[in-house]
């Protein structure tokens, strides 16, 4: 078995009293696409924020290429992050900058490259995501799918060997969404990248995943292949795959109190 490129060990995080991650242990191997799947609020985006160093856990360790990014110095963490690309859920483009300037930004900030080289690289990345010729457009002139593609081009600017994607197809129509999935597949094939995708879109999961980690209330309740997931008898997994809503259990007294406003607090 190869050594994992990302190792998450007993990761815990709380927002005040609310425990969001409850001891996540997970390995990600080089060149695989791991999809972190789960319902809204299960902690998957929080986990991703920890992986890119935006949030510190209350307990636990995260090693990326053997660097403990929770305890590393700022310089040490930044060095690791230079080879990590991040596609944010809302694209997170700078609206005051052109598409080309957005893509070029990490290169301008972190490399000694000449502007002529950066311009060519920017056009290459935009070509790769199907946005050749859009470098002078402003983000406000792009559709939702095009913004995601531009954000993907920016995530690829530094030739990352690990790419994190937070809900890449959220808010997109099905055709555009599947286009983003195919783009992820193409990038993986082309650049042999390790890709971690957070999503709750089942269609997307079954297209792009090599392995799936299912998060439920802050814990990994399943880790395996698509086939293993489809064959699982775990009721929580079956509910997710069959898209069944939660059963509605009504506490009569609490419900009445809430309706008449007698100090009901959930």
């Amino acid at each position: 078995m190869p050594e994992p490129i990302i190792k998450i060990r007993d990761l815990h995080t709380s927002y005040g009293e609310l425990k969001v991650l409850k001891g996540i242990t997970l390995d990600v191997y080089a060149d695989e696409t791991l999809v972190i799947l789960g319902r809204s609020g299960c902690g998957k985006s929080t986990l991703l924020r920890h992986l890119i160093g935006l949030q510190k856990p209350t307990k636990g360790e995260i090693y990326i290429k053997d660097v403990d990014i929770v305890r590393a110095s700022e310089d040490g963490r930044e060095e690791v992050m230079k080879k990590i690309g991040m596609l944010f859920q809302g694209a997170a483009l700078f609206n005051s900058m052109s598409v080309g300037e957005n893509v070029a930004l990490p290169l301008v900030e972190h490399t000694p490259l000449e502007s002529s080289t950066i311009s060519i690289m920017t056009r290459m990345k935009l070509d790769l995501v199907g946005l050749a010729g859009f470098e002078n457009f402003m983000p406000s002139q792009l559709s939702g799918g095009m913004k995601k593609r531009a954000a993907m081009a920016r995530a690829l600017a530094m030739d990352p060997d690990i790419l994190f994607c937070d809900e890449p197809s959220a808010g997109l129509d099905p055709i555009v969404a599947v286009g983003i999935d195919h783009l992820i597949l193409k990038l993986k094939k082309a650049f042999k990248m390790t890709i971690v995708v957070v999503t709750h879109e089942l269609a997307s999961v079954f297209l792009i995943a090599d392995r799936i980690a299912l998060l439920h209330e802050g814990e990994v309740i399943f880790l395996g292949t698509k086939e293993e997931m489809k064959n699982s008898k775990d009721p929580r997994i079956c509910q997710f795959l069959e898209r069944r809503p939660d059963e509605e259990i009504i506490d009569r007294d609490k419900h009445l109190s809430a309706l008449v406003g007698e100090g009901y607090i959930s």
Partner: protein
Amino acid sequence: MSLNIKVQTKDQYVLLNIEGDVDLYSSPDVREALLKLTKKKTPTILVNLEKVPYMDSSGVATLIEGLQQCNKYQGRFSLVSLRDNVREVFELTRLDKIFEIHKDVNEALANGSV
């Protein structure tokens, strides 16, 4: 792996031998070496990539700049002896259609007016 660049001037061409990874931090050195040759309007530049185990998009962009400068004075710019993984990068970005690529120096010499 640090980068080593050697220029060999032959009768009919100049061979730019690159040894090491060409990445975000080393490609400015390749650029400088290439632009020295194109400023002198070197008629034929062969870039030997035999000892380049890895090249990222900054390396590819640098070679595009070299090609662009060479085209301005109608010089010849060829890449030779690419390793499979480096060649793949060119193929996947469709740049194998833009560059003249040969398996070695002899093939480059046999396939062009040098």
